[in-house]
């Protein structure tokens, strides 16, 4: 069940509670957008969820890929560029097209990575067989402004979506670092190592005195670090290799080799961030 992020402008707590209630009874695969306006029909029977366009859209359809590792790309000019090699397993098939009429929002659901059918549950298999797709492990949605031109069962071709020189956003699960202290997690400074100091890697002070008499929420403290979804923005595609089915992306991407990546066109303010 996705977490409903309630927009801070003018939603009352009561409405928020009602949203959570409704969400529990009617779970959706993707997190609901920022604001969901519930209008009760005048006829009294049907309740329609009208989704306001305050959630975030993708700048274009994306694909899923696998991080293979990093290497160096030597430009013909002589520049030496560190690149990440992203490979593509069998997949990137459109499994469902959601429209405002049927689901309340426009999105394209894409599958990735073929697996044996015994590895999927029957409901998952049925969902994929409905469009005649191969059994796939991962399903992700790309929320778009318009879903014309996407059919269920369509194969997404990397060369049509991206070309060399494009800027992309790459998101994936970052490397998990476990329980980490303030210095590694929040770039805190160490205490002195000598001169009689007894505090080397501790947090130091965590607040003021009697006023406020408590520690603020969100105080940076030790905790689990890494292993969460991270997005790296505006990476450029250096090369697209068609026979090997791999692309070279300048820079580093989250995770270790073998990690699932979600590659979408970069959202640049003023250029292709869809307006509401």
């Amino acid at each position, binding site marked *: 069940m996705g977490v409903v992020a309630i927009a801070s402008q003018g939603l009352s707590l009561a409405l928020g509670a009602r949203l959570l209630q409704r969400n529990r009874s009617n779970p959706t695969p993707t997190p609901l957008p920022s604001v969901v306006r519930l209008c009760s029909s005048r006829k009294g029977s049907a309740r329609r969820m009208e989704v306001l366009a305050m959630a975030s859209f993708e700048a274009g359809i994306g694909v899923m890929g*696998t991080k*293979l*590792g990093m*290497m*160096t*790309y*030597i430009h*013909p*000019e*002589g520049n*030496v560029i560190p690149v990440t*090699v992203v*490979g593509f*397993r069998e997949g990137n098939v459109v499994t469902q097209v959601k429209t405002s009429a049927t689901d309340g929002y426009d999105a394209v659901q894409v599958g990735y990575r073929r697996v044996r059918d015994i590895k999927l549950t029957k409901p998952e298999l049925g969902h994929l067989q409905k469009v005649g797709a191969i059994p796939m492990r991962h399903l992700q949605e790309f929320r778009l402004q318009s879903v014309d031109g996407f059919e269920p069962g369509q194969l997404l071709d990397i060369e049509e979506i991206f070309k060399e020189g494009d800027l992309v956003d790459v998101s994936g699960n970052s490397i998990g670092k476990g329980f980490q202290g303030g210095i590694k997690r929040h770039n805190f400074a160490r205490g002195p190592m000598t001169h009689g100091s007894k505090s080397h890697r501790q947090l130091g002070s965590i607040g003021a005195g009697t006023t406020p008499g408590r520690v603020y929420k969100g105080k940076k403290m030790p905790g689990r670090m890494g292993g969460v979804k991270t997005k790296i923005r505006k990476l450029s595609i250096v090369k697209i*290799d068609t026979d*090997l*089915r*791999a692309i*070279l992306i300048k820079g580093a991407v989250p995770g270790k080799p073998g990690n699932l990546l979600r590659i979408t066109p970069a959202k640049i303010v003023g250029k292709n961030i869809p307006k509401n």
Partner: protein
Amino acid sequence: MASSSLLPHSLLSLPTASSRFPKSSLTISSISFSLNQVSITRTGSVAFQPLVRRGRESTFGIARAGETGEEETPAETGGDESATETLEEESSVAVAVEEKPPKKPIVKLNEIIGILNKKAIEEAETIKVVPDIKPGDIVEIKKEKANRRRLALYKGIVISKSSSGVHTTIRIRYMTSGTAVEIVFPVYSPKIKEIKVVSHRDVRRAKLYYLREKLPRFYTFKKK
């Protein structure tokens, strides 16, 4: 090694043929089992191991579209149809047995980086031939400068080599006008126009960082 006496023993524990037939891509043409005669055929670089059924003699034919008879068995014993079957462990090699257009070999994801490096090195070799460089070699390197007018010449001793595909680098140490200099050159860079191994000094290390503490005469070379 096609002795029929050995093989039945070694193949006792093999699973049955029915479970080993691949579903999608059949690489077998025709199979027949004969009790005492076991033949191994070799076509090209792919070895086939026959499956022996004891106590049974049956002919089991799976015809492939467009395939005629025994065109793949040069080494047959007797007049029987030989039993040939590929075991289903690793069949990423294209089987060029039948007269079919050769299938493109499936590239595994973990091989892609190796292939990309090889391709990049082949491309770089067209600009210049990179000799085999070892630490202790005294090399002359001609590198193109930014203004692209003259080639800069560097002559020094290789104190370390870091091999990593197309980003293989060598570290050159030399002395110029009273200053010791160490430069790292990416060997396959297109800006390096020539690498020539002039001579070699016997060293017993892979990395000659001890030269930094030695007298400058050990890394001073006269440029002609």
